[in-house]
């Protein structure tokens, strides 16, 4: 049997006939769910969590410094290697945001 001839207009017609499922919509509670999730996730850390995080950070820095000093690095290099990345990660973005908000 000979293969039927096709053209793009026929595919267009086929797609129009086939894709007739109802268009879905977002649930009415979408905004409410999303904003409650935003509130939940943007809550600042509690006193206990902050203490725990600070303790962990300090302990890591001390352990890391002692270990590096044990390997023969001087304290200036150790301080630069710890404070440099900390500045880049923590302080620089905050400064950039502040300068952007200050500019008109």
């Amino acid at each position, binding site marked *: 049997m000979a*293969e*039927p001839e*096709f*053209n*793009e207009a*026929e*595919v*267009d*017609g*086929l*797609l*129009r006939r*086939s*894709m007739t*499922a109802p*268009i*879905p*919509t*977002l*649930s009415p509670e*979408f*905004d409410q*769910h*999303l*904003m409650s*999730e*935003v*509130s939940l*996730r*943007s809550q600042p850390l509690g006193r206990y969590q902050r203490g725990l995080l600070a303790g962990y950070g300090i302990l890591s820095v001390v352990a890391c410094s002692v270990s590096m000093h044990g390997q023969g690095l001087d304290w200036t290099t150790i301080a630069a290697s710890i404070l440099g990345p900390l500045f880049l990660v923590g302080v620089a*973005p905050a400064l950039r*945001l502040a300068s*952007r*908000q200050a500019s008109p």
Partner: protein
Amino acid sequence: METDVQLVARAQGGDRQAFAELVRRYRDLVFRLAVSILGQGFVPEAEDVAQEAFLKAHRSLCSFRSEAEFSSWIYRITFNEAVNLKSRARYRRPHANETALAGRMTSEPGPDEQVETAHRDQALAECIRALPEAYQSALRLYYWLGVGVGEVAELLDVPENTAKSYLHRARSLLLGMMKDKGYSCGGT
């Protein structure tokens, strides 16, 4: 009415109302984009993708540069989220497939014709799923969700001519695939 830039600046300063307004502005388009990538059987997942995209945007709002368009940014996040989810869930069958087929079977006359149409539509759906993601999305946005070419281009973050070319190439590829499967596009 406040511009996106003003709303983004306020949201970056911690104003949740401003972020809520951005959500109201873009939620439907973000959801349409997600559903166009995931397909009609994955509507609940598309809603999850839309939610996750907005949460990611909120989390990264501080790093968002206001020279860029908020719309392009949120569409890009949505596209990546949906494609990632799809690659994780590729083994799953869509929720609505059988229901949709059953609905079609009862609404059309002639049992042979119904079966033939259902099989052809099934084959077409399989061919569409084999296309590149951007082509699939463009097809579903245009043919199913009734989105115009200009808006398809905006959602996929490409120029309008590229969106037209996506649709053209997708149709050409489908033509070949359907031909390989032995289906006539013109017939019912």
